[in-house]
């Protein structure tokens, strides 16, 4: 007779995040909580103009202030620190961590102060007098491409950081371009839709701004660096390289990190400067970014213009797609800046079987804060452009937007699917996700509801968007850091489990999900498992958390390391129980012999034996600890369908979201509660982009939306209750079947919302709207000022 398991199966269950109690009770330790004896505080003097030549810097008043330890100008930092490194293979202009001769965006550091406390440091920074010879400023991306009114980096004519990279159908790996298939598609098409679209610049705005503590210990010649980062191991690599130290001499720690959203992948000037200043002074130093700095000194996201052309037959069959992408990367290349828009090209195929695609990418310097990864990083842009084009096509053909998409899907029998863009989609069933979204939203009745509202004179619209994204980054061929993830699983002497992960969660909940997995794998209580992350002295190796990779890649490494230890533990149990290793069963906190549950030992007893193995079974080393590096063979490609209903106030132009239904397929889910939390956050940021968020510069290069008074962040009152549903299409890329979900919410939501707004205003002849959906912009359309 089967016995009821005492321990519940946890994988797949809605286990509450174990991280939350400490975080919501203020008991987490963030960088700003780190205090080291003798620590000095840094403050950066920043440029208040967007482009200018530094003619003089007077630091004497600052240096004379009581409590000021040292002041370093750009030139003095340059003597200690090589130019900023980047992580992409594109050519890049020299970028000094602290500007030496020329400042190229408002907010660029020009000097740094080390002082006894933060207040003195700031007062001293304010006391530094910098004179500039102003240079012309360019903020308009397409104007910058003409080289007018100024070329920002001499070696990059017309401000072209990346002149023009083609990709897609007929492009060979060595860059040869054959346009015949694309040209043929457009020549044959019965309908061609062309639209300029803009995916606007955003400010990431993590709850916790950046911060760093660098502690160089001269006696040991070691550096410990705490930073609010998504990837402490990459930080260690870069700090070691830039300080001339060995990786063995540098320890990087990411304590609690209050959100990253991609903007904390980059290794920033302030991190390098803190390290070299600590080394120079022989003192620990701390820098905490304030919110005003975070708006200008932390990388921004998006800012891509696309000229989109889509060619189709009247029956809705898409024949070809062209996307000419122009990415405004701001004043400098940061770690991944140049690579982000290439992901927009990579995902141009979207969920569709499009016979011919041509994309080109140009990257442009302007006098703005540099861009880099921001939640979704290139894929939301691709989704937005393609899905908006599909919705425009549906409107032109007077087809149901769902049916147009269905007609063009990559069929469920086509996976793995080689796209025109070079991606191999691992698995997918787009029609299933669409059908579930249509069913759960009540699409047919929503249409009736919309039409009834319109009959009353209300401006109500519906939007539908599919998405597919590339997640689970690696493999190593795609990342200069390597694309694997590492884990070490140790069964302690008392039978509890410590596991380290090279993923560096900062909101993803891996302390919970990885513990769920190990508790199940060993059949021990969830509370007996601790997940350790974020400290390179403890976590031997790692890459980090970005690209929705921590579960798919990091989770798999945990699973594989756990499997190795489990095998070894079974050998110890076999010796203890005088049974065959393959007959050992792990169940309910015990190891016993298959079919003879009474013949067994507790988990703790076997663990204790492994550490005092008398007698030592032949062929075994003592101890129960092993590691795994998981190198995925491919990325994962989660997908979904987002449906929205929106009403625009006729008098004011204010859009109001009435309904939002999301179907997301992230493969197998370890913890649906956490997955839903990730989707909620992603939706908030995607809907935020569609409706209210935008970084706006004036022509002098000043960020007009430089505080929360002017940069609109979405709040709970901006949203209806999200209605979430899931389909499950496991990935074959990893043994968990998990695809990743951290960014998904930002993909389908933006085109869905904008399509709903366009639909609501279709009576005014509107075919497309740029984000954000400002009330005044919509009001002008309603007033007939723009059609």
């Amino acid at each position, binding site marked *: 007779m089967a016995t009821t398991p005492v321990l519940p199966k946890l994988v797949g269950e809605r286990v509450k995040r174990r991280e939350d109690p400490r975080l919501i009770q203020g008991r987490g330790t963030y960088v700003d909580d780190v205090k080291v004896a003798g620590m000095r505080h840094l*403050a950066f003097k920043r440029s208040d103009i967007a482009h200018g030549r530094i003619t003089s810097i007077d630091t004497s008043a600052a240096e004379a202030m009581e409590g000021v330890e040292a002041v370093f100008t750009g030139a003095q930092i340059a003597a200690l620190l090589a130019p900023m490194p980047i992580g992409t293979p594109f050519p890049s202009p020299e970028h000094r961590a602290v500007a030496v001769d020329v400042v190229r965006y408002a907010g660029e550091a020009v000097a740094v102060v080390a002082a006894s406390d933060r207040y003195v440091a700031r007062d001293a920074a304010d006391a530094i007098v910098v004179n500039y010879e102003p240079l012309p400023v360019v903020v308009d991306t397409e104007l910058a491409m003409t080289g007018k009114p100024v070329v920002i980096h001499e070696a990059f004519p017309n401000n072209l950081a990346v002149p023009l990279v083609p990709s897609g159908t007929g492009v060979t790996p060595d860059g040869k371009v054959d346009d015949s298939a694309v040209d043929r598609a457009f020549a044959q098409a019965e309908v061609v839709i062309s639209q300029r679209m803009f995916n606007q610049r955003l400010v990431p705005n993590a709850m916790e701004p950046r911060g760093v503590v660098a502690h160089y210990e001269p006696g040991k010649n070691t550096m410990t660096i705490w930073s609010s980062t998504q990837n402490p191991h990459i930080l260690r690599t870069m700090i070691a390289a830039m300080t001339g130290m060995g990786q063995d001499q540098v320890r990087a720690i990411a304590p609690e990190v209050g959100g990253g959203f991609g903007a904390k992948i980059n290794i920033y000037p302030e991190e390098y400067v803190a390290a070299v200043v600590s080394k120079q002074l022989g003192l620990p130093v701390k820098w905490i970014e*304030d919110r005003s700095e975070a708006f200008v000194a932390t990388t921004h996201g998006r800012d891509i213009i696309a000229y989109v052309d889509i060619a189709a037959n009247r029956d809705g069959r898409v024949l070809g797609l062209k996307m000419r992408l122009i990415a405004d990367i701001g004043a400098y290349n940061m770690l991944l800046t140049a690579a982000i828009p290439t992901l927009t090209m990579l995902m141009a195929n979207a969920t569709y079987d499009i016979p011919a695609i041509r994309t080109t990418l140009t990257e442009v310097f302007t006098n703005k804060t540099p861009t880099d990864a921001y939640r979704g990083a290139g894929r939301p842009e691709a989704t937005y452009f393609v899905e908006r084009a599909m919705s425009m096509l549906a409107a032109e053909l007077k087809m149901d937007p769902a049916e147009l998409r269905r007609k063009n899907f990559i069929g469920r029998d086509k996976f793995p699917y080689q796209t025109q863009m070079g991606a191999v989609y691992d698995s997918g069933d787009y029609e299933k996700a669409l059908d579930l979204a249509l069913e759960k939203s009540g699409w047919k009745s929503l249409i009736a509801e919309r039409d009834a509202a319109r009959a009353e004179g209300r401006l109500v619209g519906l939007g539908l968007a599919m998405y597919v994204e590339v997640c689970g980054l690696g493999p190593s061929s795609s990342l200069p850091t390597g694309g694997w993830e590492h884990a070490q699983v140790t069964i302690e002497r008392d039978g509890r489990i410590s596991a380290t992960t090279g993923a560096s969660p900062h909101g993803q909940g891996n302390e919970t999900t990885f513990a769920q997995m190990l508790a199940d794998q060993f059949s021990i209580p969830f509370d007996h498992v601790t997940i350790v992350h974020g400290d390179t002295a403890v976590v031997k190796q790692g890459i980090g958390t970005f690209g929705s990779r921590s579960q798919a890649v990091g989770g798999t490494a945990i699973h594989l390391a756990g499997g190795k230890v489990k095998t070894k533990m079974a050998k110890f149990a076999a010796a203890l129980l005088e049974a065959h290793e393959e007959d050992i069963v792990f169940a309910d906190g015990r190891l016993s012999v298959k079919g003879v549950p009474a013949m067994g030992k507790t988990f703790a007893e076997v663990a204790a034996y492994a550490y005092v193995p008398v007698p030592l079974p032949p062929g075994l080393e003592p101890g129960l600890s092993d590691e795994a590096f998981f190198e995925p063979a491919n990325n994962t490609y989660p997908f979904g369908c987002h449906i929205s209903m929106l009403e625009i106030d006729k008098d*004011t132009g204010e859009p109001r979201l009435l309904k939002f239904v999301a179907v997301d397929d992230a493969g197998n889910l370890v913890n649906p509660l956490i997955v839903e939390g990730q989707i909620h956050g992603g939706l908030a940021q995607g809907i935020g982009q569609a409706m209210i968020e935008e970084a706006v510069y004036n022509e002098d290069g000043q960020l007009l*939306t430089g505080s*929360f*008074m002017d*940069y*609109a962040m979405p709040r709970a009152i901006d949203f209806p209750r999200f209605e979430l549903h899931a389909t499950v299409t496991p990935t074959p890329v990893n043994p968990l079947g998990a695809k990743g979900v951290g960014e998904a919410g930002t993909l389908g939501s933006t085109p869905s919302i904008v399509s709903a707004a366009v639909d609501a205003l279709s009576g005014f002849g509107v075919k497309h709207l740029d984000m954000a959906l400002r009330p*005044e912009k919509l009001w002008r359309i309603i007033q007939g000022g723009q059609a």
Partner: protein
Amino acid sequence: MIPTSFDYRRASSIEDALNLLASTRGKILAGGHSLVPLMKVRLSEPSVLIDIARIPGLSGIRETGGAIEIGACTTHHAVATAPLINDRCPMLAEAAGSIGDPQVRNRGTLGGSLAHGDPSADYPAAMLALDATIQLQGPNGARAVPATDFFQGVFTVDLAPDELIVGVRFTPVRTAAYARLRQRASHFAIVGVAASLDVAGTAIRSARIGITGAGPSATRLTTVESALTGKPATAATVAEAAALATLDDVNSDLHGSEEYRRAMIPVFTRRALEGALARV
């Protein structure tokens, strides 16, 4: 965000606060939700802060002889949720409840908002529509300033540097409402209109309308008030009168051009009047 150095003094009484004001030339700190953000970005660098938050009697809502008095240190949340305000003067609860977000409403105070004179603040419109008096204390004693005279310009109010707002007093009006277009980042008013109607039988005896956000400071829409006086209390009347709503000087910024704000003035005037009418 690191302010410049300042001294902090806690006043134990109104008299103490006035003495400290006179001797230190400091800035009054109540909820800190206007002053502290400016200090953080070093746009305001007071050398002394005089904290009045714990002065007994400066916060609270009471009814006296048919009027309502609200102490200067009463939080927006307290005003928005007070049964007395919700029963007798729901417009004011609406205005208070639309300020910022819950954290702001739990800390920010009525007196602080009025003293700051932000052209986009919600309270001034309500004070104008209620014909409230702002009650001040200074070295020479008490002064009561009608709201109509109090709001003078951008961040400018009739309050001397040595004076303190101690509260407001008004006769509650049930038939009043507040309608606003919120700026989507700050949640301040792009246009906010408070309208109060005195209706006798089926006719409007008089109307008072205050507007905020649209112009350099909160002001009354007297043309609309006159157009309503003596007219039947109907939707048609308010629609007609609201269409007359306009201001001479209208703000323009990233969140709303002058043209847009001008167009929104009659829209929110009508909505506020409709709301007031619905309470008749």
